[in-house]
Each structure stands twice: as C-alpha cells, then as structure tokens.
C-alpha cells in the first residue's frame, strides 16, 4: 500500500478497489458492508422490508459541463446507485463543502439544478449540511449525497448474482460523460456537440424490472466505465463474461475523441447508462422495455455470461480477433505518439 494518496486512488479502477479493501473495509467491517455493493440492501426485520442505502461524493471539475453540472450529477449519481440495488429511491441527504470565495450565483445555480433533478427523479432531499473551508482548500464546491430507497419486492439484484447463461444488456452509448467533461477541462478543448448523459435511471430500472423481475445484476458504469463494471461483476460472481465489441454502441464523436487520445471507450465514465445481467428467458422482453424508454433507446445486447474463464472478461474485436477487456488501473493517461 502506498503511503500517500494519489489521484488514481479515486479513479474507479484497481487502485481504488485496493484502497477500499486495505484501508476502509477492515475498521468499518460488518456483514452488509462486506458485500461491497454500490448500494447496500439492509433488512429491517420488523417491517419485513429491504432498504437500499448509498452515499457518493462529487468533486467534479469543471462545475458546469455540457449536459449537466455538479448539482444534477450529485442527485443522479446517488439515485442511480440506489436504483441499481433494485430499489425505489425515496430520500436524499446533501452535504456541501464550499470554498471561501465561491460566488453565491454559482451556488444558487447548482442548488437550483439539484432541485430540478430531484423533482424529475421523484426523490426528496430531506437533510443537509454545509461547511466552508478556507480559500485554496477546496475546489469551489464538493457535494456528498446519501440516498435511501426500498428494494422492490421479489427482486434480488447483487454483484454475486450473475449466472452462466445470463444475457448482458447495455442501456445505451458509452463514453459520453467522460469525453464531454474532458472537452471542457482546461488544456483539452475540441469542438464536439457531445453532452454528458447524466440522468436519473430509476424510471428505466422500473421499466426493466416490470418485465424482467429476475434480473441478476444491475450496475451503472461510472468511473472506470463499462470495463470496470464487467470485471467487478465477473469477479464477484465468479463467472466469465464474453462481449461483442461491435455490439457496444459508441457515438461517432466519442469514438473519434477516444481514437485521438488513445482512450478505450470501454473505460470512459458514464452517468446515465446501466448494465444489466438478465436470465436468458427474460432478456428479449428486457431489451424491448429498455428501448421503449427515452433513456434506453440505444440499448443493445452486448454479450453473455459464461462458466469458463471465471473472473475474466473477453471480447471479440471488430475484426473477429479475441482480446481480454482488462480492469482499468486508474487515471486515464493519453498516449504520447
């Protein structure tokens, strides 16, 4: 374990997983936390309900980007984590760490955006906190949101639930958010009409579970992208995954930006997409339900879960070759030549 925190520790790949395992998991250990799901399903014995609770912090820079801002993102991100537990998100808390000198107008814009996002998602922000740190000790605004929802009856979604034979569905194009944000960040300006896909997915999940209640896994591929999610699920469920590269939808502008920078679109962040592992009997209905929803119009079947090469994700490449889709390490570093 390193003795200093590095940027890669927060980038959603191997280094972050190691940090969680080695520094956080043991002192905070309990049976629920041990499952390492994005939102934890918790039983309340007397009420015979399962709750899903999640928390996420948002430190994105720039605060405003094409298609979203830190406010709407902080709502979407946590709503989605709760939804990925097969739960209906109900309530959010919001904690703010504000940097001294932040313009009030900026904060107002962010909070208005949060309100709109919460209303559109059908959730309520029910508790909050504000702290201010000295100038130079923050990045304008940091937001933490925690979310609370009720797991839908009869639904058992979790990272260990994948089974050989499951169909892998993806709700739409990958890489939009990461490239949209990169296009705004200092040092990399190129013209694209690309918007972040930041969106609340709870409605899409409801539509999916209505026709595919036995869905085994749900995950939104945020930092680390599609590659990270597939690898995490393969490892947690001890199964192999095989995907068809040509079946993964990628917008031309995203593909072009990734080519120029040497990024793999499979490792770029998304904020409005989900991956579902669905038993084969419900897969066709599930895909149709996704495509019928405004947020899933580009949904596609991208692969299958297999018993072989447990823990490994393989892909058939565009030209018919075979390669491994590896867990991304950490920060994306563009190539040199």
């Amino acid at each position, binding site marked *: 374990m390193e003795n*200093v925190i590095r940027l890669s520790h927060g980038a959603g790949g191997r280094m972050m997983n190691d940090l969680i395992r080695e520094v956080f998991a043991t002192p905070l250990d309990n049976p629920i936390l041990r499952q390492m799901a994005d939102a934890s399903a918790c039983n309340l014995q007397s009420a015979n309900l399962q709750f899903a609770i999640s928390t996420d912090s948002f430190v994105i820079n720039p605060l405003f980007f094409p298609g979203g801002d830190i406010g709407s993102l902080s709502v979407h991100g946590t709503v989605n984590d709760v939804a990925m537990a097969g739960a209906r998100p109900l309530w959010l808390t919001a904690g703010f760490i504000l940097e001294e000198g932040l313009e009030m107008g900026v904060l107002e814009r962010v909070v208005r955006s949060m309100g709109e996002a919460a209303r559109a998602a059908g959730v309520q922000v029910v508790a909050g906190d504000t702290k201010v740190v000295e100038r130079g000790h923050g990045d304008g605004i940091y937001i933490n949101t925690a979310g609370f929802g009720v797991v839908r009856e009869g639904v058992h979604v979790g990272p260990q639930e994948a089974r050989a034979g499951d169909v892998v569905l993806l709700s739409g194009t990958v890489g939009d958010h990461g490239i949209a944000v990169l296009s705004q960040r200092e040092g990399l300006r190129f013209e694209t009409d690309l918007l972040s896909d930041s969106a609340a997915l709870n409605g899409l999940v409801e539509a999916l579970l209505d026709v595919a209640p036995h869905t085994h896994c749900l995950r939104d591929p945020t930092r680390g992208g599609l590659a990270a999610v597939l690898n995490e699920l393969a490892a947690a469920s001890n199964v192999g995954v095989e995907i068809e590269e040509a079946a993964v939808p990628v917008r*031309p502008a995203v593909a072009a930006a990734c080519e120029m920078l040497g990024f793999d679109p499979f490792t770029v962040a998304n904020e409005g997409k989900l991956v579902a592992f669905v038993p084969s009997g419900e897969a066709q209905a599930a895909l149709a339900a996704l495509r019928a929803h405004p947020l899933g119009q580009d949904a596609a079947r991208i692969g299958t879960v297999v018993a072989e090469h447990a823990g490994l994700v393989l892909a058939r490449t565009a*030209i018919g070759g075979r*390669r491994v889709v590896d867990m991304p*390490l950490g920060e994306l570093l563009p190539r*040199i030549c």
Partner: protein
Amino acid sequence: MEGLRAVSLESILAQFRDPDAARALAAAIRTRSTRPARLMEFCGGHTHAILRFGIPSLLPETVDLRSGPGCPVCVTAAGDLDRAIALAQVPDVILTTFGDMIRVPGSRLSLAQAKAQGADVRVVYSPLDALRIAQETPARPVIFLGVGFETTAPMVASTVLAAEAAGVRNFTVFSTHKLTPPATRAILAAGEVALDGIIGPGHVTTVIGAAAWRFLPQEYAIPCAIAGFEPLDLLRAILSLVEMVEQGRADVTNTYARSVRLEGNAPALAALERVFEVADVEWRGFGVVPASGLALREAYARFDAARAFPVDVPPAKELPGCRCGEVLRGVLLPTECALFARVCTPQNPTGPCMVSAEGACAAYYRYGERI
C-alpha cells in the same frame, strides 16, 4: 484542436476495420506463409494495436511477432528519468510532461511520487500547453520533458520556435528525444535476435519518409513494410512481409500510403533541423547508441533545461530483476520474463514496459497474453 468531423472519421474507421476484409487478409497470410517469419514491429503503438484487435489470434504459427524499442517512455534511460525528477524538485519549477512518464519508477521514486510529495508536475497533452503555462506564469520556470521519437520531436521544435518568436524567457525543454533508424541498426548489429522482417512505424515514417528505411533491404537484406495503426493496415503489412519472406526478396513497401510519402514531411524535418542536432544518447536496454538522439543546438541553448538547471543526479540504480532491456531488444517476450504478471503488473510495475501504454508488457498484460 480542430473540430471533429465525426461522419468522415466513422467511415474511415469502418473502412479500415471491415471484418470481411480482415478475414480475407488473415486467410491470405495463412495460405502464403509456409516458413517461419519472425517480424519485429518497431513501434509500441503497433504492439498495442496488434493486441488490442486480437491480431495474433488470426495469424498462423509460422508468424512470430516481436515488439521492438519503439516505446519512448520505455527507452528513456534511468539516468535521464532521475534527472527529470531532480528538475521537478528544483524550487519553483513547473515540470510538464506527457502522461505516461509520471508512473515510471526512477532509481528512487517516480514523477508521480515526486508530485505527491510536493513537486509541481503537470500532465500536458501537447508541448504548446507547456508553453502556454509558461506564458501564464512568467515568474516560474517551466520545463517541458521532451520524450518521443521523430513523431513528437517536430512539435517540440515548433514550440521552441514559437517561444523564441514570442520572447518567452521562462520556458525550457529537457530533451530525451530519440531517432528510430539508429536503434533498429543497433538491434540488427547486436545480432541477438534473427529477424526476417520489420513492420515500419507509421507515424515516425510519416515524418522521416519511407526512403529512410531503405538501409534495411540494402545493408541487411531485410524487408520492411510501413504500416498504419488500423487492423487492416497491420494485416496488409504482415501479408506484404510474409510474401517477401516467401519470395526471398527484400524491399521497402508502404502500406500506409495515405499518410506516408517517400520523402517524408518536409516542414517537420525542417523544424527539427533548425532546433535540434544529432547526439549520442543512452537508451534503456541498449547503452549509448551513436547518433541516435536529439539535443538542442547551441543557438537554442537558452531553451535547454539541462544547461539552465545543472542539477546533481546520483548514479542511476538498476531496477532489480527487471528485464525490460531484453524485451525492448526483441530478445525476450514479455511472457518469458519471470516477473511478468506475477510481481510486475500495471498496478505494481517493476519497469517501464509495464507502465507505458505503448510498452510491450503492458499491452501483453492488458489484452490477455498472460502465462
């Protein structure tokens, strides 16, 4: 950067990744190849593309692909990296670098670790970004760590010329730039690995021109096929080399004609000529290779970081157990190194070949060529 014309790029990608054409080329290679052909792709970007598209799984057993030293991060000598880190630690200096360099372990630490300990190290995508930083912070010296072959060096030369024209006084370059034909000669001269053909680096050759590789057939009787980076480019180049091997013929073929000309790119070469001169430089894995590097000319001495900041650098230490040098010379496959995937992984790299996106070991690990 210019606006992306998404439609035309998409059609280009479709053209050069057409699965039917790929199948046909792979079948042709399998049919034509009757004898062993050991081919070296000089360029790390080629190794990466070959593995990323799963090309080895389409080739016959007779074709053996070896990665060469075309990974600029990998061939940066330990002493140069240590010097770059020492420069980053000079008070007030902003050290700008391409991303890959920051994770390579030096003798004592990496640039990333130096950054975590307080050095101002910034990743840039272009040397022009570094110049912009210098112009925005005139009170602080900005050093650009120049890594790369003939593809990258012209950009750096242009940036030095731009700095000169704009009268910028706080911008310097620490040049570790290297030239590819001399390294290729060094591999052949060493005679450690018998090569039947070379896949020529597409971007480098766009600058230096296909004629620059004529010495391969003329002096070594080895064929060379210049390749682009799309899967069909690489399959075409491999087929071209296999055909020449089967015919006992050595020539330079250009299968990347949409980018590569015989004479190369004149303005790029002119910029190089103006700012840089050829020097004997050290390559990781090779020692000093004569006339294989670029140093800033006397006329541009004021833009030379090595001259502006003469830091003391203790002697470089070897990375224990690391066999990157042999991998870079094409003598060892990554999978043949005892440390590969066991001790040395992208997360815990022993040497630069596992760190860099263009490193052979990283490509082998990432795309699944594991033991």
